[in-house]
């Protein structure tokens, strides 16, 4: 079994983007790096964009990940690789997450810049309504 990395990385250039977002969206400032990273992963994933990192820079330690966080990161890896064997290769699992986060943080920065100051959450809420709407059929099917 491959060794497990002790940290999750970002592209060094992304550090600036995380800081910028924290300045413009107050809620980000209250969140820790792991939470910001997971949000970026989700944003990249929901936009279907995953970009390999050109170089790597540690962002937070693996020990900060809780089981529920690991579950989500694993789910993303499973989704993309379609092979449960990926789970025994944590380096690959984290790499996939890092690539989504790399794309996600860039998209997020662009999104924030494109809307009026202070209105990000309004826009995001709309986005969530749509995303939730697309879940509805599955949700109903399961409810039945």
């Amino acid at each position, binding site marked *: 079994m491959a060794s497990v990395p002790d940290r999750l990385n970002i592209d060094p250039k992304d550090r600036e983007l995380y800081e910028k977002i924290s300045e413009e969206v107050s809620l980000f400032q209250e969140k820790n790096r792991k939470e910001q990273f997971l*949000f970026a*992963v989700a944003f990249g994933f929901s936009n279907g964009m995953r970009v390999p990192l050109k170089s790597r820079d540690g962002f937070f330690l693996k020990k900060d990940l809780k089981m529920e966080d690991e*579950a*989500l990161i694993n*789910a993303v890896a499973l989704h993309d690789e379609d092979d*449960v064997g990926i789970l025994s290769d944590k380096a690959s699992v984290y790499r996939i997450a890092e690539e989504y986060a790399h794309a996600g943080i860039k998209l997020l920065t662009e999104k924030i810049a494109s809307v009026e100051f202070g209105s990000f959450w309004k826009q995001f809420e709309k986005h969530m309504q749509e995303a*939730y709407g697309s*879940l509805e059929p599955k949700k109903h099917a399961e409810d039945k």
Partner: protein
Amino acid sequence: MRIKSLKLKNYRQFKDVEVSLNRVQSKKDLHIIIGVMGVGKSNLLNAVNWCLYGEEPFLSREDSKKLPQLNTKILRDASQGNEYRMTVEINAESGGKHITFIRDQYFKIGKGSIGVESTCRPTRQVFKAVLLDESGNSKIFQDEEGKKEATEKVHLFVPYGIKDFFFFDGERLDKYFREATGQNIRNAIYQISQVELLDRTQTHMQKVISDLHKDAGKTDPEIEKTRKELERLEEDLNSKLEEINQCQSQVKTAKAEIKKLDDNLRGMPEVEELQKEKDTLRAEYKTQQELYQRAIGAKQEILFLLGIDIMLFPAIEKARDIIREKHDKGEIPPTIDKNLLKKILMEGKCICEREIGSGSSEEGAIKKLIERISLSRDTSQELTRMESYLDSAKDAAKSYLDQNRRTTEQIRIVEGVLKRITDRIEQIDKQIAGYDMIKIRNWANELRKFEELLEINQKRLGVLEEIKINSEGKIDELRKRLDDEIKKETKLADLKNDIVFAKRGIDVLERSHQEIMESMRRKIEKETEEKFFELHWKKETYRNVMIKNDYTVSPVHSMGYDCLGTLSGGEREVLALSFSLALHNISGFDSAIIVDRPFAMVSGPPREFISKIFSQISDERQIILLLTPEDYASDVRDVLEDDTSNAIRLFLSPDEKELMLEAY
């Protein structure tokens, strides 16, 4: 007394001016002096007052009060240490006699640079009256220490106590009847009733009685004891009466001020209450704003956390499907660890330490088993661990709508509260917009102060009245006892008769005083009423005019109620003129009437009516009107122009230090 001319030298803006007020044969005794607002018209009225009484009651502007009386142009060119004279001279005529009043004020220019106040010090003042009889002989009367001969002459024409009914300011008409709540009217009636002599006689008679009592006390110690006790009680009563007078005066002043302030505040917003409400609303807004921010924060938190689950929902779903499939195939949970089997094969040794030979049947069986097991135990365990977290994440994503709806509803409620608060604050702001808040607040504060003053004085008055009644009772008893004691003493028979005589005299004087005052009050009331109805244009509106027991003057409405408070500016002016003319006719004082800005409180058609009234009055006596060009607009000019003996324009010199005159 009509004024023939006014000479002003170095008096305020008037450096050297003579205002001629001669009556033109074919015209009425009406004179109009016109000047723009602030040019110094009121100082002509001040000059007349200063010359006759040594005071300037119409210095309305604060800066005028600060300016020296001496003309500033003179002051600017003055030499230090020199003395300069300011003079106001009134040339008047009355009943064929000519009299000139001259008041001089000297000023010394102090050392140092020439400023305005600090270097101009008033020194001596000289007041003279020069009387020229019908034969052309002149006699000079001059005020000196303890002997006011010139002032006495002024009082023959217009006594100080009634001057306000002859020289008045239209802008202050409101104060004319209300300020002293009858006190000034009473003084006026007292003055023209000439009952002062009776009062002086009465005081003298009381002293005579007191002296007779003293004489009686010398003959008998008992009488002396009673007399002393009576004297002490009378002194106490006098001091209480003085206190009662003061209290009554304070009550009257407070009532007048309260009425005035009430009038000022009528229709004004309740500033203090509104301000308090606004402060409360602002505090509430702050609290609600915090709640709003918290609700917004909660909503964003939901969006952030559940957003991750929603955005990753497809991955969660897929992972969940995979795990379900593994369950279905029985691969989860694992029965044998695939990695362990691989290790046994690699080491060629079973966990029971038995050797597993290459190509042996055991090796073959293990290889078949490895092919059948697709998951390692770690992977299987990982998937099992994920299962519950993924279910939680799915449930969280599904709860998004409910959670978001709840926080959105909270936000909507708080937004509603905030809007209501903002609307109310805006409403209050609109209510108080355009008002001078500081002035209104000051009025409200003053009103509270006067209400307190009124309450305190009314309570005190109640106590004092009770003390007075008790004291009067005791004094009556003592007087009776003293009379009895004196009566008993046969050798005091003559003295007793003197006392009885003096007492009867006092009674007669008292009754006479009251009767004369009452008769005068009735006469003036009747005359005022006649004049009022003669001059007023709304003759059907009022029933009569009365001078009440407290000497307040008021018309009575045809419906029977006292309506001074509801009179318009124009009507109040007519009432003032009616009363003045009544005083003129009854008293015989025929002074000129000088009115500063008579139309200040009047607008519309009454301007024309009042102009006609002035014209009408000027048939009988001199009228001098001080007007602005706006006051003398066509409606007024059309009425007055042809009747006017003199129309004079006042204007400032180019350096604005000197007032000049020209025919209008």
